[in-house]
């Protein structure tokens, strides 16, 4: 019995400790910004690895999700003779929910896991310690550019996702199923508001970017430096960041769209 409480207390304390470590890592990466001249090439390299290389999967998934939404929406709406409302249905669900959330989930799988594995391996092969030996702060040199690259890339990817998905919905809805193109766009424009829908979607994806990149970097930075530890950390990155994204999505939706 005592043993159980001891374990419970130990677990709780180590949870708080890891939360504290992750916060201090994030703080260290944000405050010790590398200077502009030296940091920019590092940032651009990471933007390429994290952002540009995720483009293909984001665009292809966006296209297919848009097409599926249009197909499913059409079958329901046509029963009410309201197939003209396909545009706002697709646009609102994409801009408010699916765009930021699906992008964040894909991003966690595509880029987050890669970040964790890369940093974990750096730790296992003692590259991070060697940097410290050379008086280079790994937070500054390794973590900060990756964090900023993730933070910048994900909202851009979410915007691209939504735009491509709406084009995919247009492809299926208008060109295949025969919804009128004019009413598709005009009813969409009448229903979608720039501040309420698009800007709130962008705010959401910034929050998700922060959460996913932070979790991925921390799991890599804090992993047990063995091959087993890295594999465990990579799995944890995907699981924890997906759950965190869905949880935060509920909170943000409740704040933004319930009123």
């Amino acid at each position, binding site marked *: 019995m005592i043993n159980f409480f001891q374990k419970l207390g130990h677990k709780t304390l180590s949870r708080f400790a890891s939360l504290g470590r992750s916060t201090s890592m994030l703080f260290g990466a944000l405050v010790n910004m590398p200077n502009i001249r030296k940091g920019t090439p590092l940032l651009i390299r990471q933007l390429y690895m994290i952002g540009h290389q995720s483009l293909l999967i984001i665009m292809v998934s966006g296209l297919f999700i848009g097409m599926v939404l249009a197909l499913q929406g059409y079958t329901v709406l046509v029963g009410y003779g309201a197939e003209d409302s396909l545009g706002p249905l697709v646009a609102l669900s994409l801009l408010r929910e699916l765009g930021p959330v699906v992008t964040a989930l894909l991003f966690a799988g595509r880029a987050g896991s890669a970040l964790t594995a890369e940093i974990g391996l750096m730790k296992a092969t003692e590259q991070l310690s060697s940097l410290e030996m050379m008086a280079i702060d790994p937070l500054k040199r390794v973590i900060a550019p990756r964090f900023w690259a993730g933070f910048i890339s994900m909202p*851009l990817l979410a915007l691209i996702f939504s735009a491509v998905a709406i084009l995919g919905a247009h492809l299926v809805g208008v060109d295949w199923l025969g919804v009128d193109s004019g009413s598709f766009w005009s009813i969409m424009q009448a229903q979608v508001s720039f501040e309420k829908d698009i800007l709130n979607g962008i705010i959401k994806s910034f929050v998700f970017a922060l959460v996913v990149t932070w979790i991925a970097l921390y799991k890599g930075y804090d992993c047990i430096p063995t091959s087993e530890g890295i594999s465990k950390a990579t799995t944890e990155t995907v699981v924890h960041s997906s759950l965190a994204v869905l949880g935060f999505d509920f909170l943000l939706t409740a704040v933004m769209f319930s009123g």
Partner: protein
Amino acid sequence: MNTRKIEILVGLFVALGVLAFAVLALKVANSGISGSGETYTLNAKFENIGSLKARAPIKVGGVVIGRVEGISIHPQEFVPVVNMTIDANYECQFSDTTSVSILTSGILGEQYLGISPVIASESARQSCFGYEVAHDDASDELEDLFGVESKALRNGDLITDTKSALVLEELIGQFLFNQGSE
């Protein structure tokens, strides 16, 4: 891969992102009255607003000239007060005898506000804009006839001539009542 190529590809990525933002902002969202352009505010008291919502369009003869900003309850009279934002081009154009009614687009459609405008007289318009008004005989005669001078609606005014939304239960109740009295 050399740095130059990476820079170009990252530039491409960022440009795509900006392009997507532009498409969403210009093609998908409304670039209409809410948010852009000058507006002014009018209020109207209703008996019953049915299912009118904030952001519902305000139309004159089917053309959207504004949106419902908010709906609240009058603190003393306990009737709904609808707060409207209307394109500033129409400030001081409508007379205060203008009526507003809550209408429904289509059978299952959203409810919207329809304004049946009464065009303000020239003198009322000028006094609304803050000019000195020269009283001519015609307007004085009208004033004598109706007792009050009609004013043009400006920012913050209250429209009194309103028609509430049709509520199905009330209509049926009225119908039954009329049937019974015959």
